């Protein structure tokens, strides 16, 4: 359904490759039965495949089929973008940037610890 994909594209400010419903294959664990009122199955897991690349995403984040379908498309779109664009993908760049931030934080924390340690040592020397 088009509205689901539109939601996926609008969600973030990343420039990701668009997906069309025609390239997707969706599976629900709902079985072949009559469905609707005649069934009360609770498995709302969505399995979504991007046919050209073969990438498959499984989503059971919520108890709502509609939400799982939306989320599955968002995750799939990110994976497909990574697959085709590699390091040029906004997803890759964002991950790299956040990892860099993490390293920076660690480095700074380590530095602070060293500085405090050094300061304490100097204090001990002064007391003597």
């Amino acid at each position, binding site marked *: *359904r088009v509205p689901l994909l539109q939601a996926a594209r609008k969600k973030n400010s990343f420039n990701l490759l668009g997906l069309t419903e025609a390239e997707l294959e969706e599976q*629900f664990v709902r079985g072949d039965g009559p469905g*609707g*009122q005649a069934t009360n199955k609770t498995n709302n897991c969505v399995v979504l495949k991007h046919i050209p690349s073969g990438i498959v995403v499984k989503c*059971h*984040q*919520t*108890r709502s089929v509609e939400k799982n379908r939306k989320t599955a498309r968002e995750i799939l779109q990110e994976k497909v973008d990574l697959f085709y664009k590699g390091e040029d993908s906004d997803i890759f760049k964002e991950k790299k940037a956040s990892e860099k931030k993490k390293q920076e934080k660690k480095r700074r924390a380590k530095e602070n610890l060293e500085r405090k340690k050094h300061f304490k040592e100097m204090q001990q020397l002064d007391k003597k």
Partner: protein
Amino acid sequence: MWKPGTDFTTMRCLTHLLLRRLLGLSPQCMPGGLSQSKGPILSPKQSSLRQSCNARPGLVTATDVVNYWQKVFETNGIPEARESSEYIVSFVLGAKTFQSLNSKSLRTPLTAVQQEQIQQLSNKRLERMPVQYVLGEWDFQDLTLKMRPPVFIPRPETEDLVSLVVEEESRKCEKNSSLCFPGPVPHPVILEIGCGSGAIALSLLCKMPQSRVIAVDKEKAAVDLTAENAHRLQLQERIHILHHDVSYSSAKQLLLWGPIDFIVSNPPYVFHEDMASLDAEILRYEDLDALDGGDDGMRVIKTILALAPSLLKDSGSVFLEVDPRHPDMVDKWLQAHPNLLLILHAIHKDFCGKPRFLHIQKQSR
């Protein structure tokens, strides 16, 4: 005869069914059933099964417990053994699904209180109680709603019914603005027939902030549950809930806010001959009147369509969820009743590709 090491739970389940058959009871029985016991006492065989799940005696993780109850459910012929187990354990841990739990929660040992809660809930599932009633709640689109037997449990297909109404309303708004119709933001009035737990009505209110809903149901339990859910979501100001049977009562009360923009319904549409083959979960716990649509499944559908012209604004719409065999039948019926001035505007498929939703429009004179 009780043999040492007998799986107590299996025995209890069999006894339950056998008792019912011997007493000549129909498959549908009162919620709670005949069993008065508080819950299965774990036989030595069962407790060792649990302890063998991990290396640390006495400590069980979420994964251990899910695996344990999955096996118990499977042994007792409970459908969706894994899913049921996952939903119950997730619920006790405060999450919606197992997949949404982080790896830390999965490794943390469960407290005795949590294990006891899981046991209580699982005992209910062992009686074929639907998971939604076991947990007392379920989700519909973005909403979490209280669930209580025998009020009909919303099905996942019906989420798309709500989306169709929302799309139609925004299409109408766009059309009006492109035709340069001035004026205030429209306040669509929606009538839901057969509101059940309030899933459709309350979802529509959330997605269409300017709308108001009149929700009716012939069952008091449904009216009460819809009211309860409306209050929990703070939507009670925008919904009017009536205990009303559209088959027998005058439609005048339904016009309290004037002519209606949309009539929405997920009416009972199961063909009567198909009722007996429904799962035990449905037959034993849900209100069968919410499902049984009579011989051709069309009894309530026809009632709604016969009522629609006197309630709808010109160009107003009826949105119905139906059985996949109904679209053709409804089309023929509408053509046989041209005085109603209703036409089948569109048929929409559900997420499994089955024709499921009808968009019927009232023609302007």
